[in-house]
């Protein structure tokens, strides 16, 4: 308890310093949100295993540390950034180093007129009316202490706006690089993506690190898909095995919008992803896919909520996990079909492979249906590598290691193939090949 109190007070204490260092970002609207969030942060307590939503995820290891905020912007070489780019593809990428936008490391090719892709800090300073309209409107604070922390310390993050009718063919790749030396730092990217009516965009949130070791990423992403917009969201979490990663994504879907999410995670010490989408009007579709690969003592928790508030929407969700050693996984997929939401289609699937006797998964599908004319299904499996398939491959001259790699690849492929961009898919495939060809996984 003492530790938890200290953890909290540490941030409260730092708020004054943080506030002093804000310049143009201290607009009245946003700063009010910060201060309200700080009070909320003081008032709320950190979740424990007694909280239903955190039943399987003990975050006390996180609360043992005092993470220092990073004040000034850091620069890195373009060589380092290149390591995280997809297969020589000419694409738009924006880079955040320790949570701060780095203009020098970013490269924005010609974007359609009116499109904004950059730093939310700039958007706040420029008093972009979209900030007032959307910022903090979707990631509410009730019972969300980590969001309160993020909002209180709102400083920088990615801001993307695609005006009505605009189409960005190439993905916008956002690299969040932690370059912490040996310091235990906290970075809190705060992102807002707005896709206007009839627009189309692919956004990739890519969390990477230059160093091993302990650090804390606490990130909140708000996404608005206006009428008939198509938004593809990919999140790649390639962090230090000792990192803590708490993330929340809130998606607002308007009429006939289409939202696709693919989460690929290599895990960290503790990773928690809360992905929530809300159908605010009819005709929307969303797909949530995820793949996580864990070993050692990693803990990964995917919590999703699909809120069918309106009729005639459909959702498909498919998460897969591969766990080795003492790794633990949690999948909690809630589908809420409200009384109005007739003709809802909601399908959910979670499959896991355990490669060791000590790995475990808690999977919890939660269907709450209050409408009567709907089609909903869910399924969950936890198993081991298929011995018949392995013997079949062995009997063709394929050794154990290669057979295992082939089968794990096949298991992962259902999710991987939902990534429609070849170069990104190849990038993920490469990570998989490296992982699967190690002896210990």
């Amino acid at each position: 308890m003492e530790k938890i109190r200290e953890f909290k007070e540490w941030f409260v204490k730092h708020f004054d310093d943080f506030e002093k260092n804000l310049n143009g970002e201290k607009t009245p609207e946003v700063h009010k949100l910060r201060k309200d969030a700080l009070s909320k942060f003081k008032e709320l307590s950190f979740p424990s295993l007694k909280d239903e939503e955190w039943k399987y995820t003990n975050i006390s290891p996180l609360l043992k540390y005092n993470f220092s905020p990073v004040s000034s912007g850091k620069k890195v070489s373009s060589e380092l950034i290149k390591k995280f780019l997809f297969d020589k593809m000419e694409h738009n990428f924006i880079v955040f180093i320790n949570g701060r936008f780095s203009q020098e490391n970013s490269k924005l090719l010609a974007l359609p007129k009116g499109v904004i892709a950059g730093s939310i800090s700039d958007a706040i300073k420029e008093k972009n009316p979209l900030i007032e309209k959307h910022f903090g409107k979707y990631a509410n604070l009730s019972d969300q202490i980590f969001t309160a922390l993020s909002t209180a310390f709102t400083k920088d993050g990615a801001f993307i706006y695609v005006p009505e009718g605009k189409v960005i063919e190439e993905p916008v790749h956002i690299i969040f690089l932690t370059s912490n030396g040996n310091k235990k730092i906290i970075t809190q990217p705060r992102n807002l993506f707005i896709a206007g009516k009839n627009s189309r965009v692919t956004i990739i949130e890519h969390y990477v690190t230059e160093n091993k070791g302990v650090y804390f990423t606490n990130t909140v992403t708000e996404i608005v898909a206006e009428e008939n917009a198509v938004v593809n969201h990919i999140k790649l979490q390639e962090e230090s095995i000792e990192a803590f990663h708490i993330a929340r994504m809130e998606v607002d879907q308007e009429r006939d919008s289409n939202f696709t999410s693919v989460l690929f995670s290599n895990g960290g010490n503790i990773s928690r992803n809360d992905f929530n989408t809300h159908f605010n009007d009819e005709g929307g579709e969303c797909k949530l896919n995820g793949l996580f690969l864990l070993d050692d003592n990693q803990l990964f928790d995917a919590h999703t909520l699909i809120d069918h508030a309106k009729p005639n929407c459909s959702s498909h969700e498919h998460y897969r996990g591969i766990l080795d050693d003492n790794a633990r996984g949690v999948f909690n997929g809630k589908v809420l079909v409200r009384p109005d939401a007739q003709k809802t289609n909601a399908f959910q699937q979670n499959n896991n492979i355990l490669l060791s006797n000590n790995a475990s998964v808690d999977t919890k599908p939660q269907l709450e249906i209050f409408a009567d004319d709907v089609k909903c299904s869910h399924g969950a499996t936890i198993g081991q590598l298929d011995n018949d398939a392995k013997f079949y491959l062995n009997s063709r001259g394929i050794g154990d290691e290669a057979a295992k790699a082939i089968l794990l690849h096949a298991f992962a492929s259902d999710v991987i193939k939902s990534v429609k961009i070849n170069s990104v898919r190849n990038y993920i495939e490469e990570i998989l090949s490296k992982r699967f060809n190690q002896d210990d996984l």
Partner: protein
Amino acid sequence: MLLEVKNLHTSIEGNEILKGINLKVNAGEVHAIMGPNGSGKSTFAQVLAGREDYNVTAGEVIYKGKNLLELKAEDRAREGIFLAFQYPVEIPGVSNVNLLKTAVNEIRKYYGEEELDAIEFLSLIKDKMKIVELDESFLKRSVNEGFSGGEKKRNEIFQMAVLNPKLAILDETDSGLDIDALKIVANGVNKLRSKDNATIIVTHYQRLLDYIIPDFVHVLYNGKIVKSGGKELAFELEKKGYDWLKNGSPKAIAG
């Protein structure tokens, strides 16, 4: 001699299935092993291929002068043993071409040879596809997933053609096939026959043996080979049925 099985006993979960099998196979020969359901035919095929679920409790198997039972399944395959599965396994997400390419290169690595590049590999398999009349779209499909019975068995023979084994074991390759598929499969096997390799056909029915003429026929019953003879033995079995074995004392038949 290519293969010599001496007094082979195996069990699974404490149940003895094979109770002393003796068999000699030379290069260039085709042997048929026939028997009723539950006689141990498939067990025998799988034990030769290296399935680890079975315990060998007694006996030995010498293959190319080596103790076969000491080799892992993949090494047996690399040494030239091929099992065409009775129930080929479906592996969603793994394409046929990926499986074969990995297999061919794993075997080449075993012999210290360089891996085939994509062009060399494709020319190898395109040639072999003709043997079982498969078209190219087949290569991209997931291994056996959604295949008809005939396609699965043709796929087995196609893999066999690519891997070019010394000793092919066909486990019930004919069962469940319509006559066209049966002819394609049998034709494939016949094309692959040579004086350097041998085939063991495990089957319940005599039908396949109309198309692949065996040099020897063995009758397996209750875990033992109770009678051996030439191809005419298959006709006799077909005519009299397996009840002939069950009713008579095995000793009398063996004699």
